[in-house]
């Protein structure tokens, strides 16, 4: 099992010591052109989660490749997964092609589901197919839970050549203030945190029933027990998102909590759940 960060939930250059506590670092999504992101207010805490509308703020592909990525690789000395976004299949494929052969890049995560920008008109499978043709790097498709049948999308991206799944992205939400106005400038944002966990677990579970691809499970993980739940539902790896905002020491703490769990008992139940969902390959390193 690898412990990662969820894309956009950690800046390796602002907090390299935190990024080094992960097995691999996932970058903030890079798009072909620079994006200033959404106007403020961008975040709002609710009773059970966090709503954000950052709007894929990033320096764009050219500056990312020339300056940001080399510095991240040099600073971390850790495998780096690059989160790739775009507005057409060609956008994604071009970035993938440009990542080919870059030192330190261990995988590409295709952000097919940012809730704060309009989706690419191409289907997830078309984007994956275009990227597959452009690179030999491992391709992880990051999917939204906001679909009637996420397993169907999982099957489609696997057929198109994906090497793994990242489950899940945030889900759209709206929070209003005391005077009933939206708390975010963009009104609607991506909802994360503990409220997302059951939704994410259901997506992992559903996808594990239809594929043997590695799955990075994420959504509301707060502690070691949550990690075990994701593994039991069928995740291969896990990623931390919102919890990093509250506790930059979460990766170390969660590893300690995992070490303290009664693994044998959990593994019995985990294997039960895994057997149910058809996962043959549960391993914890």
């Amino acid at each position, binding site marked *: 099992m690898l412990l990662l960060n969820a894309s956009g939930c950690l*800046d390796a250059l602002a*907090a390299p010591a935190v990024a080094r506590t992960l097995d691999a670092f996932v970058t903030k999504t890079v798009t072909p052109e620079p994006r200033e*992101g959404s106007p*403020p207010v961008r*975040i*709002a805490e609710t009773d059970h989660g*966090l709503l954000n509308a950052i709007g894929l703020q990033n320096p764009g592909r050219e500056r990312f490749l020339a300056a940001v990525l080399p510095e991240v690789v040099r600073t971390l000395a850790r495998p780096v997964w690059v989160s790739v976004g775009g507005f057409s299949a060609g956008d994604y494929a071009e970035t993938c092609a440009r990542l080919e052969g870059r030192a330190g890049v261990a995988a590409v995560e295709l952000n097919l589901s940012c809730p704060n920008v309009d989706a690419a008109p191409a289907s997830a499978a078309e984007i994956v197919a275009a990227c597959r043709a452009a690179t030999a790097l491992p391709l992880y498709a990051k999917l939204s839970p906001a679909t009637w049948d996420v397993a169907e999308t999982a099957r489609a991206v696997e057929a198109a050549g994906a090497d793994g799944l990242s489950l899940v992205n945030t889900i759209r939400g709206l929070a209003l203030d005391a005077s009933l106005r939206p708390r975010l400038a963009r009104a609607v944002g991506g909802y994360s945190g503990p409220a997302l966990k059951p939704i994410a677990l259901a997506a992992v579970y559903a996808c594990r029933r239809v594929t043997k691809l590695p799955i990075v499970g994420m959504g509301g993980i707060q502690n070691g027990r949550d990690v075990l739940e994701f593994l039991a539902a069928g995740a291969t790896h896990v990623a931390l998102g*919102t919890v990093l905002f509250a506790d930059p020491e979460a990766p170390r703490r969660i590893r300690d909590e995992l070490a303290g769990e009664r693994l044998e008992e959990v593994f019995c139940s985990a294997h039960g759940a895994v057997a149910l969902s058809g996962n043959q390959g549960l391993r914890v390193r």
Partner: protein
Amino acid sequence: MRRERRSVVAVERLGPYALLRVDRGGLEPGVPGQFFMLEAPGRLLPRAFSLCLAPPGELAFLVDPVGPGTRALAALEPGEAIAILGPLGRGFRLDVARPLLVGGGIGVAPLPYLSEALGRPPALLGFRSARHAEAAVLVPNAQVVIDPVLVTDVLPGGRDVLACGPEPMLEAVRAAAPGAQLAWEAPMACGYGACYGCVVEVDGALRRLCVEGPVLSCSS
């Protein structure tokens, strides 16, 4: 950047505000204007507070209990512990010749510690009511104005202004005192550059407050 669980020493009432005093432990107080993320009991995310005072062995934060997180912090009892991360961000530059501290409402929070660092220079504080103005006792050499009088109504010229307060006040101070150092505020999720949530728009550009600020020079 360091994170420790620290014990509450006392919570003192100052008008509607609460001065939360915690045991300092291994945390550094940092530069005036820098901030700390305080765990808000029962909430998902911590809350950002600039350091208000650094008495020996303690750190003190001024809390305006306006939401569920700040109310939980103001309701802490001595002996209870919360996680504290900091100091974070960029504080005030202290190389100023004729400092004048300007604060509005809860924006007076960083001024007591700043005042100490600058040798108790004059200060100008604005509050919305006499009850809110009780917090003025924290700032030495302070002139206090109460709404409808605004700090910018009585702001003298020829001073190096260091200000913290609501955005309209900062904009007005900026217009009256070009070159002022302004401490801005925005909702923050993490405080250490991870979330990209805390941008403010200054001169048409979005600035990430937790890493570029919270103190921004307006001449830049």
